[in-house]
């Protein structure tokens, strides 16, 4: 799904950055903020408006973990796998989510409701292990809590 305003949206972003050297990453950040990911159509439009080859755009998009080229789910579950979370059992949380939702990391459930991703350190190590769902943080999560967290969203 891509908004009809795509050309306009990209124009606004490019306008903001056009006088800055090395602006590509910042432009892509703004595009991702707008759509939640960088759709192929938007990448093409950025390529056109910045007069940069598409390969140059994808070179950056695929190098950096932060950029997503696939549409996220309706709810996005991020499991922190920083050192503190890892030691306190984050991997068991991932197993539990996989089991409940039948979803692999980096993918969405078949109904598009949940997307599971693994992130490196959210910087809340004191609260480990940490899961976020669309920015809402769940701290000191136990394996048995996972089912309730997911249930909170499945009925929304």
């Amino acid at each position: 799904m891509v908004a009809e305003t795509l050309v306009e949206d990209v124009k606004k972003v490019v306008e903001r950055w056009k006088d800055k050297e090395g602006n590509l990453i910042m432009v892509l950040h703004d595009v991702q903020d707008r759509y939640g990911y960088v759709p192929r159509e938007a990448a093409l439009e950025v390529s056109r408006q910045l007069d940069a080859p598409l390969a140059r755009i994808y070179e950056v998009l695929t190098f950096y973990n932060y950029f997503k080229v696939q549409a996220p789910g309706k709810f996005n579950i991020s499991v922190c796998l920083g050192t503190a979370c890892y030691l306190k059992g984050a991997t068991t949380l991932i197993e539990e989510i996989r089991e409940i939702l039948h979803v692999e990391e980096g993918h969405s459930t078949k109904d598009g409701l949940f997307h599971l991703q693994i992130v490196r350190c959210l910087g809340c190590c004191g609260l480990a292990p940490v899961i976020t769902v669309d920015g809402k943080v769940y701290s000191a999560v136990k394996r048995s809590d996972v089912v309730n967290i997911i249930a909170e969203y499945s009925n929304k």
Partner: protein
Amino acid sequence: MGITRQDLDKLKEAAGKRVPKDWIRVGYSTCGVAAGADVVYSVLVEEVKARGLNLDVKKCGCVGLCSAEPLVEVNVEGVPHVFYGKVTKDVAHKIMDEHVSQKKLVENHIYEL
């Protein structure tokens, strides 16, 4: 024209005079907010308003005691100055009722490090 060195000193002096006597600080960094500091902050602000108190409630950075977030530091005349940790909505109400109004320390949440 920007400020000069002298302006800096004047601004500092003026700022120093505007510090209220009684205040509450809420640790409002990513870790604090993740643990619920936003809710605690709004409860405290509402309570202060509702009671018409001359008490400054302020958002601050992180003191560093992440496992005890959300952290609230309370400095009110007549009661020792303390940090409360793992503050929930209920504890925030207690801080207003017991610490601020009755001048009593709230049980179980003080981190006196």
